[in-house]
């Protein structure tokens, strides 16, 4: 198996420059990461160690906790300068956990998407009740939670069931974009969506 650092180095060599809301540029000192909205800004706060990435990823601009790291609310105002590909890899693992590994597994043909029905069927304890989610409720929950604008930037690889695709979001939600952008992939519904399904089934309000 190709080492993940080598695979990332290869992608950067070929011109890979974007992952989620982060843009990566070659700098005199190695590599520089910043928010894609902050390109051209001169007033950014400089960070230089990968451990900073975990802090930067944890809170949004308003200081609220980002439980879902692929939500489109990455905070602004920083730049992170790192010496080599290994440290860039660690930083990206903090900003977008598992996204390097998941994409490489996909390239190797080892990533098996799991349909929502199978994910829910596996649940036990307080989440077992999610098995009662109707197809209609599933479509609307996904439309609400997974939407790129305000929900989550990942590309969905699963279906609701073998027979039923997700049809409540636009095609771009399911399409991997160009080579220069490292894809954020959702191969199985996350725990936040499963927890959302529980609320829908139990008739609880979405927030709180």
């Amino acid at each position, binding site marked *: 198996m190709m080492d993940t650092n080598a695979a990332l180095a290869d992608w950067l060599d070929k011109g890979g420059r974007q992952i989620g809301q982060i843009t990566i540029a070659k700098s005199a000192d190695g590599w520089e990461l910043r928010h894609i909205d902050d390109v051209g800004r001169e007033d950014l706060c400089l960070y230089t160690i990968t451990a900073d990435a975990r802090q930067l990823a944890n809170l949004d601009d308003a200081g609220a906790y980002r439980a879902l790291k692929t939500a489109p609310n990455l905070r602004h105002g920083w730049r992170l300068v790192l010496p080599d590909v290994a440290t860039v890899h660690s930083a990206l693992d903090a900003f977008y956990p598992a996204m*390097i590994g998941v994409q490489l597994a996909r390239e190797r043909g080892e990533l098996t998407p799991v349909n929502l029905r199978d994910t829910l069927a596996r649940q036990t304890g307080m989440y077992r009740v999610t098995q009662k989610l109707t197809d209609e409720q599933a479509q609307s929950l996904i439309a609400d939670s997974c939407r790129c604008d305000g929900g989550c930037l990942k590309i969905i690889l699963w279906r609701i069931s073998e027979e039923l695709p997700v049809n409540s979001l636009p095609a771009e939600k399911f399409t991997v974009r160009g080579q220069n952008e490292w894809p954020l992939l959702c191969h199985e519904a996350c725990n936040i969506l499963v927890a959302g399904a529980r609320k829908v089934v139990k008739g609880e309000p979405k927030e709180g």
Partner: protein
Amino acid sequence: MFSKPDSALVIVGHGSTLNPDSSGPTWGHADAIAQLGAFGEVHCAFWKEEPSLRQVLHCVNKREIYVVPNFISEGYFTQTVIPRELGLDGPQTNVAGRTVKYCAPVGSHERMTDLLLKRAAAVAPGVSPKETSLFIVGHGTGLNDNSAVAAKREVERIRALGIFGEVIAAYMEEAPFIAKWDELSTQPNVVVVPFFIADGLHSYEDIPVLLGIASTSPGAASATGAGVFAQNPYRLRGRTLFYANSIGTEEGFAEVILDQVAAFDAAAA
């Protein structure tokens, strides 16, 4: 210390969708172990955060993977959720060409007793243990796990050492209730150590409110919750009370994680 350059370590934590500090200790232990260079790779995975248990194996390059639950006790998560999500069927499982070795959770290691003693001594420096009632506080019912059993076990071990005037297990949601700490204890000094894996809602807000050292909860835990530890000692109900961080924030947990890996190998040998 052992060296396993061809193996990976995955530390599994609960994580939270509400509390930004929940996964901090687990990451801290992972960083400490990575620094030691004991493993070829060190990863974390969480039930409620990413990397998730369903993602993490895709992030590992090594073929041999030790999984250590950063949980306070055996229970629902260690026996049902983690094996199910990782696809494990026993202590050792072949998962998509990888050997996954499933170790015991940190909380069940006998070294936990030493860490509790260390934490109790650190929070109340210069205070005579003989004149101190030490409380180990667990959650109690409501959580489907054995944390209450684990807290009781630790209390018995510490009591047997005869260091403290009193050692008492108390709970948030079952008797003996921590809210009645002054009735449950007799010593002039009281040390309270939350038997939890991370600081969060329980240690920042719920327990302080039950102890009477904070007013009602302002809502979801935030980084400012840490202030409750800075105001020791508290003088109330005629006693001097010292309130410690959750035991899981103790640095020694990193070594306990390594010990659980060594224990797995010893049992398998």
